[in-house]
């Protein structure tokens, strides 16, 4: 039963903060420090600090790195300049999603940031397809990832950073420093708020954490990370997508660039696009006080049309919210405002199809 869980370089800090710890994708991670509701509201209203060092970092370098990655992901890297990041997915031949990831384009290499649960799988997948002039290095253990999220993130961080952060737009990054600790500062996040992700050497992470904590920025656990991302309708791998779903089904068509000559999964996805996408991902709010959870059935006029992929209580809207995969054929006329039901413990409960995102935060999306 007892498997050895990995810990991040900030484990000592989490213990000191008295965090409630849980096993997550093979790591022992903080679920919450003071309660999910309070932590969630802190990020929506002020600023919060996350340890995301469990995320995987894979470095891709060599002559053929660009061509290689272009074939591995669905996105178009030729439009991405050094200093820019790209959100994309990696698919199997049949179009099933292996992972969703962020690709950082550096001067002469790339850094892929992948889900903790998929780091080994993706690392292996890349190795299997690797041409001789490209190399992959798993740097997860050497790199720590801290994230500062909330509307005042830029103002706060600017005090401790020599570079002009207002010049850094969404999905752009710079090699800089924070509190004189060398860091890649990236204007990215998973909360719906403006914010920055800081990649630093693992051994420097405790010092950086302490410096930020001294400025009264509270720590936020994975519990609030999940409620924040769901309010912002960001998808979670393993819930809203996996190898049995395609990017077209889960509403990620925008990251699939069919104009590219080739990428793994292109043929299958093209076929799906030309025929019909069998399922689609919808967002809904509960219309009573119940809370939808993963795998609860979604009903339309009493008929089972799909299942919930993510469900929680929204601290901002103060009601149940969720995402669900439904059969396209059976739900053709569904639109924002349509009434559906979610089966909660055997009973249908009313729900309403919602716009995405549920909550509009301070993030400046854009290109």
């Amino acid at each position, binding site marked *: 039963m007892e498997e050895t869980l990995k810990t991040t370089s900030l484990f000592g800090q989490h213990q000191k903060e008295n965090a*409630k710890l849980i096993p997550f994708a093979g790591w022992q991670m903080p*679920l*919450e420090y003071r*309660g*999910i*509701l*309070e932590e969630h509201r802190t990020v929506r209203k002020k600023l919060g600090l996350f340890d995301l060092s469990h995320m995987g970092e894979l470095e891709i370098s060599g002559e053929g790195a660009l061509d290689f990655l272009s074939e591995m992901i669905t996105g178009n890297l030729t439009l991405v300049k050094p200093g820019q990041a790209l959100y994309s997915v990696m698919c199997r031949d049949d179009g099933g999603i292996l992972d969703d990831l962020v690709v950082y384009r550096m001067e002469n290499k790339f850094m892929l940031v992948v889900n903790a649960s998929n780091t080994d799988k993706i690392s292996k997948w890349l190795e299997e397809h690797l041409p001789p002039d490209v190399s992959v290095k798993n740097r997860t253990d050497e790199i720590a990832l801290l994230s500062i999220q909330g509307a005042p993130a830029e103002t706060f961080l600017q005090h401790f950073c020599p570079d002009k952060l207002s010049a850094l737009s969404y999905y752009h990054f710079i090699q800089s420093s924070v509190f004189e600790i060398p860091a890649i500062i990236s204007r990215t996040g998973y909360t719906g708020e403006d914010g920055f992700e800081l990649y630093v050497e693992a051994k420097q992470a405790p010092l950086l954490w302490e410096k930020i904590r001294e400025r009264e920025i509270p720590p936020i656990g994975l*519990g609030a990370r*999940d*409620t924040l991302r769901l309010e912002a309708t960001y998808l979670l791998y393993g819930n809203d997508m996996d190898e049995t779903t395609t990017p077209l089904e889960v509403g990620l068509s925008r990251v699939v660039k069919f104009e590219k000559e080739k990428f793994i999964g292109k043929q299958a996805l093209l076929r799906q696009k030309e025929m019909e996408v069998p399922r689609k991902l919808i967002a809904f709010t509960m219309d009573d*006080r*119940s*809370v939808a*959870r993963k795998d609860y059935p979604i009903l339309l006029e009493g008929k089972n049309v799909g299942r919930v992929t993510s469900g*929680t*209580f929204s*601290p901002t809207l103060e009601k149940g919210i969720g995402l669900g995969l439904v059969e396209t054929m059976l739900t053709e006329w569904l639109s924002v405002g349509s009434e559906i039901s979610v089966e909660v*413990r055997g009973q249908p409960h009313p729900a309403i199809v919602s716009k995405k995102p549920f909550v509009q935060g301070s993030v400046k999306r854009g290109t």
Partner: protein
Amino acid sequence: MVPEDRLYTKEHEWISIDGKKAKVGVTDHAEEQLGDIVYIELPKKGGNVKQMTPCGVIESVKAVSEIYAPVSGTVIEVNSTLNDHPEKVNQDPYGEGWMFVVEMSNPSEVSSLLKAPDYLGLVKA
């Protein structure tokens, strides 16, 4: 914290007995494990509950969990304050966070419940 003046179930409910009446709630350990509670579905007043059978539901932000009836009987009172203030269970599980009162139909069932030191042993294990 496990008060000595009541009995406990293995499913983390507490029960405080006054004659045939038994007041029910969940323990500090239970609310701590659940985290922020956002919704509670209590048994209906006037309804019957059966010992160690689910009779209600607690939704926290991250999970859902059932409330088991520690004893059988008729529900004669429910704490309707929890409809609008489910957080009372987090704040004061043994006091203001009480959930319902059962008039016991079979008071001998009480003998199967745990005393405070035994319950403490269970949650410490």
